[in-house]
């Protein structure tokens, strides 16, 4: 990539991030991890004495319960909602004709959109880890005998969160492309909900459920916990290949688009 291209990509990325100022997409980035961490904190704040019996492994248990909740339902919906909100900013302003007539290559404007989505997701996941650790602190203050700090538990948690994030990239790719191509919110949401429900159904016992793009985030958590016998690397590889394919399909759509 030459210097001009790098400058074009950086400028596009900065513009993408700037346009989400005061939007629901940006609020979602902050509020989603806050809500999950807050829910967990509230549950343990009032019921930790019934859930935990000793402080041994308590932080690991707390964080594992949190990631179980997040990976099962919330994270999929977060991605579905985020992709819709990101692209609705463009659709609502009918700004594609402007975006396509800036002196920036199609590759840069397109890739900048992906990068801004990745940046938002990484921010959400980082905030989720941060808020969860704060939650541990709150519970430890309330129940000093039942909650103790464990660096090992934190690293397991970070690994879980990272792998759930990576394994959900195929889902992200599908939702991103659909929300980008069609301005109809119902279509993107509808597809997301159908994908999510079908994933829940196949996870009930279908032996090939680990090939369902919308089930990967949830199943990688099970694989990490040893609840299913599928290698973690399958989820990472399959999801990244899916992401690459959706990225390329999206690029062809972007490049071939006629701006009416």
């Amino acid at each position, binding site marked *: 990539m030459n210097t001009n291209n790098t*400058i*074009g990509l950086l*400028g*596009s990325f*900065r*513009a993408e991030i*700037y*346009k989400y*100022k*005061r*939007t629901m997409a940006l609020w979602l980035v902050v509020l989603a991890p806050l809500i999950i961490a807050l829910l967990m904190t509230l549950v343990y704040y009032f019921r930790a004495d019934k859930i935990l019996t000793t402080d041994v492994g308590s932080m690991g248990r707390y964080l594992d319960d949190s990631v179980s909740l997040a990976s099962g339902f919330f994270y999929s919906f977060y991605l579905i909602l985020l992709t819709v909100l990101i692209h609705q*900013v463009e659709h*609502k*302003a*009918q*700004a*594609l*004709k*402007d975006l*396509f*007539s*800036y*002196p*920036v*290559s199609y590759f840069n404007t397109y890739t900048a959109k992906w990068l801004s989505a990745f940046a938002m997701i990484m921010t959400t996941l980082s905030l989720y880890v941060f808020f969860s650790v704060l939650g541990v602190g709150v519970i430890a203050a309330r129940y000093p005998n039942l909650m103790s700090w464990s660096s090992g538990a934190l690293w397991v948690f970070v690994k879980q969160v990272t792998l759930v994030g990576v394994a959900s990239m195929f889902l992200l790719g599908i939702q991103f492309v659909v929300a980008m191509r069609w301005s109809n919110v119902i279509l993107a949401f509808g597809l997301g909900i159908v994908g999510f429900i079908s994933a829940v159904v196949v996870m009930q016992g279908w032996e090939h459920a680990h090939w369902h793009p919308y089930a990967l985030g949830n199943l990688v958590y099970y694989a990490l916990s040893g609840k299913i016998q599928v290698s973690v690397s399958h989820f990472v590889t399959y999801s990244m290949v899916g992401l690459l394919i959706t990225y390329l399909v999206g690029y062809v759509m972007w490049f071939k688009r*006629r*701006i009416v």
Partner: protein
Amino acid sequence: MDTQRSIIDTPNLNFAIGRTTILKDVNLEVPKGSIYGFLGPNGAGKSTLIRLLLNLYPVEEGKIFLFGNDVTTSRVGILKRLGRYVEHPSLYQHLTGHENLRLAQKYYNVPSERVGEVLDIVGMTEFRHRKVKAYSLGMRQRIAIGQALLHDPELLILDEPTNGLDPSGIKEIRELLVRLNREHGKTIFISSHLLSEIEKMCTHVGVIHQGAVLYQGPLEGMDRQAAGKRLLVKVGNVEHALKLIAQQGLEATHNLNATLEIPITENAQVAAINRHLVQEGIDVYELHQQDHNLEEVFMSLTNTTNS
């Protein structure tokens, strides 16, 4: 340094969507330094041509050269040198006018100080911190034109920038464009169906109808090409005068004020008509030569095609 005279050149440009032909053999030539008015009724193909110039549609048949470069192979380089406004302002409503310009400034990679300069040029400094959703249409249009000016382009391509504005808004935009042309040396390509606006500000005109360019060239050459001039003659005896005019092989019409309207092609006819009428005893009270206005010429051109 560019040495080409035409800043936009579209040799043998054709375009169709499905089986519908939108543009037929369009050979546009826009001189550098001009304000080129691109006139045509709704559906004539103006917006399609502008989208082709900006490479928003792929060129299928023919070529498009801007600044002497092919738009399909030098897209980014060309877009760096032009500013555009396509059909209506596409602004982010949740951002202020200033923020919308800041956003465009990042795409154009120009210093942020340029935003303030542009706000001054388009007269929006006072309202820069209001959200766009609180703006009137005219204010939005000015911010959108400001976006087009951010990187100080040599060429402005504007698709109906006065659409939907009230007369004072139209006047403001017109004055802004004339100032940009005269004081900042911008070449301006502006499409419109408002003939009177084109007439007031453009140096060159192109008329498109049903996808074909019927005329292009200097504004003053258009009336000569189309319908010439007319002579208004106020006379005493209208019926007799009409007969005398007919004897000279001319077709005259008259209105209730006893004024004859006679199409002419040259000044010598004025003297000849006057002489003939006076010699035949007709009282001539007033002689007035009038150019056809652009609207009449435009109607004449487009009606010729329809028939």
